[in-house]
């Protein structure tokens, strides 16, 4: 356990300027931005891999890459996007940057552990994407690595994959321990739990899920590696093993993992909407309860990924019902967000556009999620492009949209400069169009007979696949305005001042960018982070 050493936080001991972003810095803000930039790098890597997939699928025959390579690419794409982009950014980046501000602390509870957790990521990521060089082949069994397939594909690549995921899982657990301790133990005296900004609650719930479920993934991957290296037979039916046990343990982590990817996004949206709508967050208390409800339900629904895996009828039934009920707390959050917008004074800037895009996309993905939760429905569409459509609406249309919204919202905090709004709107437009064009047709493909993870398909599906690939191309193009925006802003961006949005949450009550220990004086006690609208509109000057 890394021990916090207050003297290590002294600014003099840390490198300054841009160099500190490449150092073992203990400053939570530096670490947050390290997570962000590192995650974005891997987003580009994962995006390139997606490009390979969509190029292969332009034609119904396997002609662009070899079949082995195709499986490697889709495995790496999924792994990179989940473990190196979404999870680190939506948890690590924004969590580290914001949580200490929100609890009124000068840093996280364990700064050194925090730095260790971050610095596990780049090596793990590089290990993963270089498995071709190290092992001669990358893992080919999908991000789910189901045995016995994962026992029969090239072993070295699979072992590298396991090693990398174990490192990333470890990093995630260290991060979660830190978040829990910070939120529960480091709150400024006088600040009550029910006065915390919603993102704290989201991160608390997420971190609970990480602590409770990630170790199970680690355990099952260790067993899997035994099967590969030591020829044990846990998951090898030829040796009396049981492949379905792997699936249970895998999904015991990987269903909560989808909430690990989306709960923090819920939290971020809850911060962004009130600021730009100039209205308090609607229904704070029910929002808190629904987060905790999602955490609880999220732990008992994993087998909905296994409806066709030889699960007995009672199990199919139980998991259908439990899964369906997640829609209730999730629905509450959406209605509360709409109610937050209702009657506000909404500034439709880039942050807001991406947030509203998130609402629409996520609702769509949630609806397809409910359909998938019904066993009889899922039996037909399981492991088809319908599922691919579902989870991309959730993970991309949901979480990635929120990451972009958060970027536009907090960029002035990070750098003191506002991102360009015109480029931001263009970025939104391209992303929104490209995303829907790419993933909407996939639902139809799945319903009509296209399974997922294939390099070749029935020629009848060519047109829709090409449409989807065009969407992917537009999505690729949509990163250009974002990158351009960052460059333009760095060169001659509009100075933001300390608080360009007139926001009330604590991170805005200090300079932008903030000083090393966050506040020039005492930490402010913010008991009403959403106290907008207290000046009646009519009495305006």
């Amino acid at each position, binding site marked *: *356990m890394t021990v916090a050493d207050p003297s290590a936080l002294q600014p003099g001991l840390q490198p300054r300027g841009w160099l500190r972003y490449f150092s073992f810095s203990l400053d939570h803000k530096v670490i947050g931005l390290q997570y962000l930039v590192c995650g974005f790098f891997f987003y580009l890597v994962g995006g390139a891999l997606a490009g390979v997939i969509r190029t292969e699928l332009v034609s119904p025959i396997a002609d662009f890459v070899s079949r082995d390579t195709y499986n490697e690419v889709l495995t790496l794409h999924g792994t990179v996007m989940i473990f190196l982009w979404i999870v680190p950014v939506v948890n690590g980046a924004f969590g580290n940057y914001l949580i200490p501000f929100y609890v009124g602390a000068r840093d996280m509870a364990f700064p050194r552990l925090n730095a260790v957790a971050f610095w596990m990521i780049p090596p793990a990521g590089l290990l993963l994407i270089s498995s071709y060089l190290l092992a001669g082949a990358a893992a080919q069994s999908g991000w789910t690595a189901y045995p016995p397939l994962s026992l029969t594909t090239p072993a070295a690549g699979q072992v590298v994959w396991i090693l990398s995921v174990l490192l990333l899982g470890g990093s995630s657990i260290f991060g979660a*321990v830190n978040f829990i301790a910070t939120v529960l133990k480091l709150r400024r005296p006088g600040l009550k739990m029910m006065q915390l900004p919603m993102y704290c609650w989201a991160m608390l719930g997420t971190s609970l899920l990480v602590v*409770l479920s990630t170790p199970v993934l680690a355990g099952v991957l*260790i067993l899997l590696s035994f099967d590969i290296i030591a020829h044990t037979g*846990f998951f090898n039916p030829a*040796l009396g*093993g049981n492949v379905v*046990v792997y699936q249970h343990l895998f999904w015991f982590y990987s269903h909560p993992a989808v909430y690990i990817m989306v709960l923090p996004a819920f939290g971020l949206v809850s911060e962004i909407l009130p600021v730009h709508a100039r209205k308090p967050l609607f229904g704070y208390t029910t929002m808190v309860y629904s987060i905790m409800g999602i955490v609880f339900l999220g732990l008992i629904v994993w087998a909905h990924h296994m409806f066709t895996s030889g699960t007995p009828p009672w199990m199919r039934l139980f998991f259908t019902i439990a899964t369906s009920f997640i829609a209730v707390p999730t629905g509450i959050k959406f209605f509360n967000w709409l109610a937050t917008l209702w009657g506000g004074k909404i500034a439709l800037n880039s942050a807001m556009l991406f947030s509203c895009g998130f609402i629409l996309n996520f609702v769509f993905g949630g609806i397809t999620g409910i359909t998938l939760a019904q066993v009889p429905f899922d039996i037909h569409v399981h492991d088809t492009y319908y599922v691919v459509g579902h989870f991309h609406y959730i993970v991309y249309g949901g979480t990635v949209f929120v990451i972009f919204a958060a970027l536009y919202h907090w960029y002035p905090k990070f750098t003191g400069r506002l991102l360009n709004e015109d480029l931001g709107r263009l970025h939104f437009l391209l992303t929104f169009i490209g995303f829907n064009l790419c993933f909407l047709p996939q639902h139809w493909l799945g319903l009509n007979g296209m399974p997922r993870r294939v390099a070749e398909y029935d020629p009848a599906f060519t047109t829709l696949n090409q449409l989807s690939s065009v969407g992917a191309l537009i999505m690729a193009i949509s990163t250009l305005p974002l990158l351009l925006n960052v460059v333009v802003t760095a060169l001659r961006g509009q100075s933001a001042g300390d608080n360009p949005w007139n926001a*009330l949450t604590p991170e805005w009550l200090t300079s932008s960018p903030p000083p090393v220990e966050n506040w020039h004086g005492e930490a402010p006690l913010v008991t009403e982070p959403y106290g907008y609208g207290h000046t009646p509109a009519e009495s305006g000057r």
Partner: protein
Amino acid sequence: MTTTNPSDLRSQTQPDEATPSAHAEHQHHDARLFGLATFLVADGMTFAGFFAAYLTFRAVNPLPEGSTYELELVLPSINTVLLLVSSFTFHRAGRACLADRPQACQGWLAVTAGLGIAFLAGQMVEYFSLPFGLTDNLFASTFYALTGFHGLHVTLGVICIAVVTLQSRRGGAVSASSPFGLEAAELYWHFVDGIWVVLYALLYLL
């Protein structure tokens, strides 16, 4: 200008009562043990995953002819007693440390480490006397995986005890006024013991 302005919030913004550094230090002490406990919950979930896998295998995958779940009980039972006693001796070490009696503390720590090493030795003896190897059948593999993973934890615990013993010498990092290192090692040791009790019940007695 009617927009709520942060500077209007002064009423909500009160100065901190304590000086920040004193406050932070006090908090950090609490948070560290708390953080360790959280981490141990995570670690416990790894074991929970293993146990769940083991129980499922046992429930649905019959062993091949000629294999058995029966295990020799004498040695593991002695080992269980050793670990339970070691929890007690560690507790005494902690009390001695808080009472500012570093000599006694180190003595109890040495006894604890000795018990831990004896446990590991017993485990080794058991490994070499077992009639099955790692890959013989599903039960064998699970048995070695579970006890091995637990044994790693005990080994780590012994190392921690050694480190804490060194630190508890005069002028070291562990003392009555800063017992964190010792408390952390103790919490960890009790956790590893608790896991063993579950493991013993499930693997040997079931």
